[in-house]
């Protein structure tokens, strides 16, 4: 049984902008696997072990996104595919999902495609749902736990706005994993060695079953302006000793406070 996991390379840190210029930092060595994808890879590995399947990690990105695929391989993915070409650049969610869907179709039939629920840079949480529709298979999102895996179906808990839902569904499906889905599997030494020598398959536009358009030309949305936000603090932070902080809070909360002795 073939299982896939989509991974993305993202700038490291929560706030990947140069504090002086506001420019995106994309320097070498400062990119990491999207933190959500660590959980997707881990959940995919556990599922692959149970089903005795193979796991293929797939990433769309520039040549340096190979590093992210090697991270997935070090965690245990059996093979890795980089979907790479300048035609794919500038893609929004729809166009990214379009490219990934064509690449996944090219690679063959997968029973399950895992994704991280969202990425730390785009932060839209939309890709897994768009990908599933463009693959023509069901999407199971907001997964917080995998309860049961059997050869034909899977049971998960989903954290939704109107409650926690238990869903049992047959394959194929796209699964979007949240950070609570499982314990992350750290890369092993053996895995790292294997990943270092792994031959990564590359797919360019000419390798895909559809001529395109891809990338920016296939994107229904356009960013017309990006503006740096200088959020003004409402008030300056107060550095108070605990008892002074406590009195201030008591006053704000409308609760009377005993005067403390200086020793406290």
């Amino acid at each position, binding site marked *: 049984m073939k299982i896939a996991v989509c991974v993305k390379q993202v700038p490291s840190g929560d706030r990947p902008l140069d504090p002086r210029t506001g420019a995106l930092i994309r320097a070498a060595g400062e990119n990491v696997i999207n933190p959500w994808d660590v959980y997707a890879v881990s959940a995919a590995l556990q599922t692959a072990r149970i089903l005795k399947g193979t796991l293929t990690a797939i990433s769309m990105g520039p040549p340096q996104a190979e590093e992210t695929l090697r991270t997935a391989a070090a965690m245990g993915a059996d093979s890795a595919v980089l979907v790479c070409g300048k035609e794919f650049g500038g893609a929004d969610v729809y166009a990214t999902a379009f490219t990934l869907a064509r690449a996944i179709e090219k690679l063959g039939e997968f029973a399950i495609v895992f994704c991280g629920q969202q990425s730390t840079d785009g932060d839209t949480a939309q890709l897994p749902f768009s990908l599933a529709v463009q693959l023509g298979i069901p999407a199971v999102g907001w997964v917080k736990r995998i309860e049961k895996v059997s050869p034909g179906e899977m049971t998960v808990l989903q954290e939704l706005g109107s409650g926690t839902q238990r869903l049992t569904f047959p394959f194929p499906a796209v699964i979007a994993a949240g950070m609570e889905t499982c314990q992350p599997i750290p890369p092993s030494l053996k895995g790292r060695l294997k990943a270092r020598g792994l031959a990564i398959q590359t797919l360019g536009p000419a390798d895909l079953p559809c001529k395109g358009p891809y990338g920016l030309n296939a994107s229904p949305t356009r960013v017309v302006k990006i503006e740096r936000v200088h959020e003004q603090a409402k008030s300056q932070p107060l550095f108070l000793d605990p008892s002074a902080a406590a009195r201030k809070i008591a006053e*704000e909360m409308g609760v009377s406070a005993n005067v403390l002795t200086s020793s406290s």
Partner: protein
Amino acid sequence: MCSPVVPDSADSPILVFLEPLGQDIHPASRNAINTALGLAGDTKRELCGVLLTAAFGAGQSAVLERSGLTAVYVFVNSLLGNFVLEEHLEVLLAFVKEKKPGVILFGATPESRALAPALAARLKTGVTADCTKVAFREDGLLLQTRPAFGGDVTAEIITPWARPQIATLRGLAPELPRRGPAGSKIIVNSAKIVNPRAQKAEWLDRVTEAAENAASNVLAIGGGVRRQEDVEIFRRLAGRLKAELMCSRALVERGWFTRQSQIGLSGRGVRAEALLAMGVSGSVQFMAGVMSGRICAVNLDKDAPIMLKADVPIAGDLYAVADALLRCV
């Protein structure tokens, strides 16, 4: 690919996707209605809503009749009581193809954030996620503004040729603006779901209350609380402060609280007189649940987002401050 699947014109409708919450309408949907009312302003566009539900009650009907929307289309099917994406998508897609809206607005609940991109993919159009603002430009295109990169920048996005223009909106609204006597047409239909589901779905817990808390004081604790047994310290403190103890999403994920106690987009909204946030970072999702009230924050990280938004930001250790508070109040 360059021709719109759903044609648009200057008077094509604005559609708001509405979600039920128990007997009420979800605060995220109410926020979307309020935004849509502002957006429709003096355009000639019809403003309508669509609600998919397992049962349509008098409570929902009463809210929607006074919503200010021209018409609300309600689709009822017992299968819609669970959230199986493909079933919701089938019903919504059929309606959208018939109604041909130029703009669709969704709240930012997990359900809507799944349904919007799935619908968009079927219509070969885009979605701008988690918008903080939408407005028509002079050329009639919808300008969609969203924060990006952890809120350090805002991006303005348009959907130039694909239709409809779809956005999900951040924020929860406590109530709808008063629109006078009942005026919205409510059209109830049974929803056709042709493809029988292969999935089995059941709720383990269900949020059914209108997600709002009007306690006068609220103590919210977050990821800064280190151990589950420490929650007792803050429970005691909440008692002394005459506050309801609530939490951020981090503590629900650790299993220490249920979602009924969670403030934020996937939890409840609070309208407190004073909110004391201890060890809460103050994500955009959390802040969406804070509807009013003065905010005091205690956080070790003086640069945490909550410290920018607090009226009284105190940089310090929440345990030391909690200890001092317990000795003086």
